[in-house]
């Protein structure tokens, strides 16, 4: 291609886009389309029966509700963690930094068993909480705790580089112009961070939605109460009901995709709004 090509100043667009599309198709679209093809064997009535029974609806509520709550809590506390790790230096900082990645690396089943051991009524923490009337293991709250655990790194790791880019001089400028600490945080820092926080939240939320390994240990899996959607998919598979299982999976996929798209749009808008 000649240098006068009007398309782009960067060379290699065709090649890299081709590679991108092929790669995404192989890794993401192919398995997903298999789910849709399997579901296509069901007629509307069967599909509806598989995805909208009271038991499945209860599981959607728990899965989406607990994942949203876990993402939201991590958006707040993960931001604080990231702030501390970027802005301050203190002894043991590297260790704390490495700890954040632990939920990434730990096999989720190990996480689930460990959390259940700690929060069960005979466990070291659960024991005290139970005396105070709060039961964690084998309740919906336990599901939320497990999801918060596995999704924490997503918020922290998304925010760290953004915070690193944010120069302290901006805060100093804000202070010299007469802003108080809270004003600086709310009017200057948070608007800059907001798109990254939303991204972190979206990643954490998506991760929590798909989580299976750790939750099945701590939830107790009681129908209508503490069943998550991935467990119901396993339940269907266990009956060799591949189509019913993929039907639920397709609903989850569509809902997750719609939510993630919405979050992306929200993020884009807020970015445009603040950058003007």
């Amino acid at each position, binding site marked *: 291609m000649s240098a006068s090509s009007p398309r782009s100043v960067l060379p290699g667009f065709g090649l890299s886009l081709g590679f991108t599309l092929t790669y995404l198709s192989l890794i993401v679209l192919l398995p997903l389309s298999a789910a849709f093809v399997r579901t296509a064997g069901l007629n509307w009535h069967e599909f509806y029966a598989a995805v909208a029974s*009271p038991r499945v609806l209860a599981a959607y509520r728990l899965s989406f509700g607990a994942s949203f709550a876990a993402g939201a809590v991590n958006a707040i506390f993960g931001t604080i963690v990231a702030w501390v790790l970027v802005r301050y230096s203190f002894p043991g900082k590297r260790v704390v930094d490495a700890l954040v990645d632990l939920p990434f690396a730990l096999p989720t089943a190990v996480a689930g068993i460990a959390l259940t051991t700690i929060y069960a009524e005979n466990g070291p923490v659960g024991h005290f909480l139970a005396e105070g009337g709060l039961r964690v293991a084998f309740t919906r709250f336990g599901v939320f705790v497990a999801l918060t655990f596995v999704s924490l790194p997503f918020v922290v790791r998304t925010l760290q580089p953004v915070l690193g880019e944010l120069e302290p001089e901006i805060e100093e400028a804000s202070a010299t112009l007469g802003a108080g600490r809270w004003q600086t945080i709310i009017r200057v820092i948070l608007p800059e961070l907001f798109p990254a926080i939303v991204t972190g939240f979206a990643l954490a939320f998506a991760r929590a939605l798909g989580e299976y390994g750790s939750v099945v240990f701590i939830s107790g899996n009681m129908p209508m109460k503490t069943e998550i959607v991935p467990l119901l998919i396993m339940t269907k598979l266990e009956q060799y009901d591949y189509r019913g299982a993929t039907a639920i999976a397709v609903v989850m996929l569509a809902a997750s995709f719609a939510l993630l798209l919405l979050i992306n749009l929200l993020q884009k808008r807020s970015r445009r709004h603040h950058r003007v």
Partner: protein
Amino acid sequence: MKQFLVIVLLAALAGCNRRHAVALLNVSYDPTREFYTEYNAAFIKHWQQQTGETIVVTQSHGGSGKQARAVIDGQLADVVTLALSADVDAIARVGHMLPAEWQTRLPDRSAPYTSTIVFLVRHGNPKGIHDWDDLIKPGVQVITPNPQTSGGARWNYLAAWGYALKKYGSDAKAREFVTALYKHVPVLDSGARGSTTTFVQRGMGDVELSWENEAFLAAREFGADKFTIVVPSISVLAEPAVAWIDRTVQRKGTAAVAKAYLHYLYSPEGQDIAARHFYRPRDPQIALKYAATFPKVQLFTVDELFGGWTKAQKTHFASGGVFEQITTK
């Protein structure tokens, strides 16, 4: 992708064949690990004496249903030794890898050893649990996995149902009993191992419904001074099913050795090893030898009371089945 994997595996196996001995893969379920480790050693020796051929037997363990799905999805199992015949049926029905009438190819409906469902209670039996009716007394908590995700738990459920059916005489009464029973279940783990953890490690519940062999294993592993095994008056005859997978053994040329592997389970030595690992042997003489280990209990089969696994599965455990009806109310 799958084909590619199969080709790679086949190539690897072909490579093995040329250099080493014949390799058999036994795809089994969770609690049979120690049993088959010992049995494999015995069979390898037996086969060498018989034919002069040295073979290798590898094992794979996991939840019974998961293992069946792995075989359907292409795991090259020469033989499967699973928790219930319905899982082997699924390999025949969904995977078309062996004939539908596989169960008639070996003696005793292809179940060389059996077990039953018993109660594991805390040491000394503080709640005085002796039979099924004691499980629905006020204040008793029962630990059993979810029968929709755990093959083992389906036996627990059917054992309870069969007891009530035999004692009270009608399906309506049996349903009442099972409904009451699951009201006493605080946690439905996804598998039998999870239930044992809940009962043993978490200290939840007063009684765990368990396969007899797993109850023995748990008692041995965690100390006999912690748990007592209670055998109810009536229970279900649990028949783990074994079969060779025609499609695989034809492709690999392992039909003869795979069949011999399963037949040897019925031999006195095979039966003795099974009994040592707490499975009830079929062979009357070996059974006599281990009579002290296995208390007498009135046993019914799933075929007798439920018209076979496929039917039981559909009525009780499918979506919208009885289990879902009584637990989602």
